[in-house]
């Protein structure tokens, strides 16, 4: 058995001698007196020896024992022999992994986890002959202090003392792989014992899928948990987004998700400061659930809006997750670029119909600054500058170079609306999807020779999907007169269940899809409208404009959480601007401040092919970061805490030992009482103190004089 604070126990031993010392020091000086009846005194003392002196010894022993037990209880007793595998002799390699993720800042009311972790780590980094060790500070990018194991314990302990909680999650697998490299054997003659010490709170979200099997087979694993006995209550804003609503973009939808990681229902008030306006949202959050709070707020101007959302009047285990930065971009009315070979012939052309559907104010005789038409042969890198949506219609056979340009735009997160007016579009789509890494649900093919696609109508309107779903009850009346002509068939053998595949938004009565929306992994979108607009009657029914409006809104929606990045994870953002990187600056209002200031520690800006790329390998401060040119914001990003760090639920010792690290020699030592019942030892010492007091009382009553 050991003690967390042995000095307290030492103090207790000194205190236990206090009754004896006090008795000795305060012993009265005897008065000398001749006595004639000394034999009666002697007989009385002998009689008392058999009773009272026994009582006195019992009481003295019980009092000393009570003081010792009380001191032991305060000293934090714990059984170390079964939970600690480190040995004090022999050659060994010891790697200490110190978790510095945000959840380690959680406090049980007195001591934050990182403080306990530093204490544990220092204990394992003490010199002894034959021991070499290294320290891995494990955040989002785990790093070892030394390249290899070392005997420089002093430096390692200094690193431990300097270790602070980072606003990021721990990359458990990367830390274990790094530890495995440090523990790897250097040859057949390397018989040193291998010890891995992991000091963490063993959060369920981070450690649930940890892979210990990368470690050498003979590694002995000591797990030191810093988590409190029970997961402390925590409230957190796990996400905050603000998206423009409607084609006019005169309002925004504010969505805040509040996580209640406690056992009780809580009423919360969220204050959102966006731009110059302040909004309040209130809700009751159910225990162990994430509650969505929404509010539609008016916009003020265009461009990037930034601010923060904050939980009011909340006191919990982790204060850092009680606020969250937020950014939103009000693009204004979207800009379109259409790639088409049409435009020279008289009459109704599908490109003209599409242009009017996208830009209703565009008429036959007028032009709009929101719309540009580019012929395929004139395509270059600057053709798509400033465009929010690229439309392709009747472009003929596109060269691989041109398709590559379109694919690049998709990979950069832009959306392409492809209208299949011609048979050659099947080949174009096939190559474009492949180059842009977009997986279409079906493979388009030209209509078979001798067949014509005409007078087709929409089916499966019972369960409409976007953009048709937004029409609600009027969808049937809207879709009934629609007749589709032209477009592509599907290649035999690639048919899919249209109703179950979310990418197919509408289906024609011949089984071919009418509208397909497929997203790439980079965030870009490829949408296919499978019809020849000129041959169809959509433009005549008046349904084309609202249909295109809904489709464009979906395509322009960003799925990147509205410019939110997570602390600890690399940021690479492309800023479409003609300015040079040197002329741009990064401004930040981190740590929840409203006032911004310039910073040069928030990554770097690099020129790259007509744009500027913002690169920040390890964002370490939450806040709003803006890329500005002459105080005009070109780009804004919200760097926030990983939401997983707010859930402080931990894994039990059994799960870690028996499931995650099965096959290894594992010892788990918990600071709380659930995982390791030995940690309740102090309570038994207190019980012992109470028993001693009762024993003293009983002795006094039994030997009452």
């Amino acid at each position, binding site marked *: 058995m050991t003690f967390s604070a042995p000095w307290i126990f030492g103090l207790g031993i000194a205190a236990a001698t206090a009754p004896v010392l006090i008795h000795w020091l305060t012993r009265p000086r005897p*008065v000398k007196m001749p*006595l*004639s*009846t000394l034999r009666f*005194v002697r007989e009385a*003392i002998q009689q008392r020896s058999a009773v009272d002196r026994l009582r006195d010894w019992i009481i003295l022993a019980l009092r000393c024992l009570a003081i010792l037990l009380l001191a032991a209880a305060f000293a934090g007793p714990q059984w170390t022999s079964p939970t600690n595998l480190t040995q004090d002799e022999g050659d060994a390699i010891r790697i200490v992994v110190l978790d510095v993720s945000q959840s380690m800042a959680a406090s049980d009311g007195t001591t934050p986890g990182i403080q306990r972790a530093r204490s544990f780590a220092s204990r394992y980094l003490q010199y002894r002959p034959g021991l070499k060790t290294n320290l891995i500070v494990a955040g989002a990018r785990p790093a070892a202090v030394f390249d290899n194991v070392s005997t420089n314990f002093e430096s390692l302990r200094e690193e431990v003392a300097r270790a602070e909680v980072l606003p990021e999650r721990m990359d458990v697998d990367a830390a274990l792989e790094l530890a495995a490299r440090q523990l790897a054997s250097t040859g057949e003659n390397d018989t040193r014992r291998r010890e891995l010490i992991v000091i963490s709170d063993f959060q369920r979200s981070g450690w649930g899928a940890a892979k210990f099997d990368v470690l050498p087979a003979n590694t002995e694993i000591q797990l030191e948990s810093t988590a409190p006995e029970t997961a402390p209550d925590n409230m957190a804003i796990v996400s905050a987004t603000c998206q423009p609503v409607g084609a006019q973009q005169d309002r925004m939808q504010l969505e805040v998700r509040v996580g209640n990681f406690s056992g009780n229902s809580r009423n919360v008030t969220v204050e959102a400061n966006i731009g110059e306006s302040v909004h309040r949202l209130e809700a009751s959050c159910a225990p162990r659930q994430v509650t969505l709070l929404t509010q539609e707020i008016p916009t003020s101007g265009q461009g990037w809006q930034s601010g923060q959302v904050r939980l009011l009047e909340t006191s919990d285990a982790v204060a850092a997750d009680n606020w969250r930065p937020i950014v939103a971009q009000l693009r204004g009315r979207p800009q379109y670029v259409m790639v088409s070979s049409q435009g020279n012939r008289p009459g109704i052309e599908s490109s003209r119909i599409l242009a009017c559907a996208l830009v209703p104010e565009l008429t036959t005789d007028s032009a709009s600054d929101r719309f540009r038409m580019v012929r395929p042969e004139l395509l270059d890198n600057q053709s798509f500058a400033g465009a929010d949506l690229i439309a392709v219609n009747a472009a003929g056979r596109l060269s691989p170079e041109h398709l590559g340009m379109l694919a690049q735009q998709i990979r950069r997160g832009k959306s392409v609306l492809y209208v299949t007016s011609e048979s050659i579009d099947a080949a174009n789509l096939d190559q474009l999807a492949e180059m842009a890494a977009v997986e279409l649900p079906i493979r388009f093919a030209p209509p078979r020779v001798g067949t014509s696609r005409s007078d087709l109508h929409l089916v499966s309107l019972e369960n409409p999907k976007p953009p048709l779903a937004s029409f609600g009850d009027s969808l049937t009346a809207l879709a009934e007169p629609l007749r589709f002509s032209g477009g592509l068939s599907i290649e035999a053998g690639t048919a899919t269940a249209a109703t179950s595949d979310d990418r197919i938004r509408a289906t024609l009565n011949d089984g071919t899809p009418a509208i397909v929306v497929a997203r790439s992994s980079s965030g870009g979108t490829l949408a296919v409208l499978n019809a020849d607009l000129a041959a169809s009657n959509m433009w005549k029914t008046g349904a084309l404009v609202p249909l295109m409006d809904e489709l464009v809104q979906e395509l322009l929606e960003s799925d990147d959480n509205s410019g939110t990045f997570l602390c600890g994870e690399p940021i690479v953002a492309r800023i479409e601007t003609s300015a040079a990187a040197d002329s741009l600056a990064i401004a930040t209002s981190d740590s929840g401040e409203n006032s911004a200031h310039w910073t040069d520690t928030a990554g770097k800006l690099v020129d790259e092919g007509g744009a500027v790329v913002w690169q920040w390998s390890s964002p370490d401060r939450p806040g709003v970061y803006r890329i500005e040119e002459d105080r005009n914001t070109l780009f804004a990003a919200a760097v926030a805490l990983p939401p997983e760090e707010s859930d402080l639920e931990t894994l039990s010792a059994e799960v870690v030992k028996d499931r995650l690290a099965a096959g290894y020699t594992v010892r788990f030592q918990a600071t709380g009482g659930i995982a390791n019942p030995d940690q309740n030892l102090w309570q038994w010492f207190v019980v012992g103190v109470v028993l001693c007091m009762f024993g003293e009382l009983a002795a006094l009553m039994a030997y009452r004089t």
Partner: protein
Amino acid sequence: MASVARGSRFFEQQALAGLAHMRFTTAHRVEGSYSGRHQSRQQGGAGEFVDFREYSGGEDLRRLDWKLLARTGKSFVRLHQEETNLVCTLAIDGSESMAFAGSRTRGGSKLEYAQYLATALAYVISLGQDQVGLALLTEKLADHMPPGSTSLHVTRVMQQIEEIKTTPTANAAGGLRFLFEQTTRRGVLLYFTDFLMEDLDETFAALRLFRHRGLEVLALHLVHPEEESLPRGTAFRFIGMENDGVLNCSPDEIRTQYAEKFSAHTAMVRQMALAAGCDYRRLSTSVPYLQALGSFLVERSG
């Protein structure tokens, strides 16, 4: 006896003037040297007539009541009670325990109390024309003055009482036996002691010898208040007065047990004294000796 013992510091003649009219008496018949106030064991013809008894052959014809023989024809002898003086022996225990004076500076020891009391008794006895002797008892008979009644003798007795010194000894039976051998006449033995001797049984055996010879034995048990109850205080180092070692203790812790022990001891002494036929009287030194003596004399006078 007006001129006796002026030099003794224990003789307070003025204080004893109040007791001058009282006499030390005994209910027993005694043997005295001279005529006196006390019934003699001898029944001669010069004393007060008390009864007739039928004559039996061989008796002294001088006591035959001739007149009665002439009137009745029966022979009776006249019985007369002889009176004689009293022979008292003051035996004082000279063991060291008698020097116990307690922790307080005021007040005296048991020995001093015995000295005052013995001096006063010697004076009162001498006032009754009785004889008084003195014996100082240790393991043996340390000092002995045979009884006498002259003023010079009484003065010497008082002086001897004043000069008594204690001796560390735990036995008293030897001294009593020596005294018994020196005692020839039946009288009264007043034994001043604290009965803290180890040979208590032998002591009472010796006292029984006196009783068997016909002496009246008065056991005057002297008790100091701090013997009955230990002194107040947290810690004492008690030093045995009769070479029985040293003992450290806290009197408060053993007060009850000690009191029980001492009470049992005094009760046992009383039982043994009564069993031996002795007259027992317990005297606490906290009671003024004149008061104790007065009540004692009143009691005896009957």
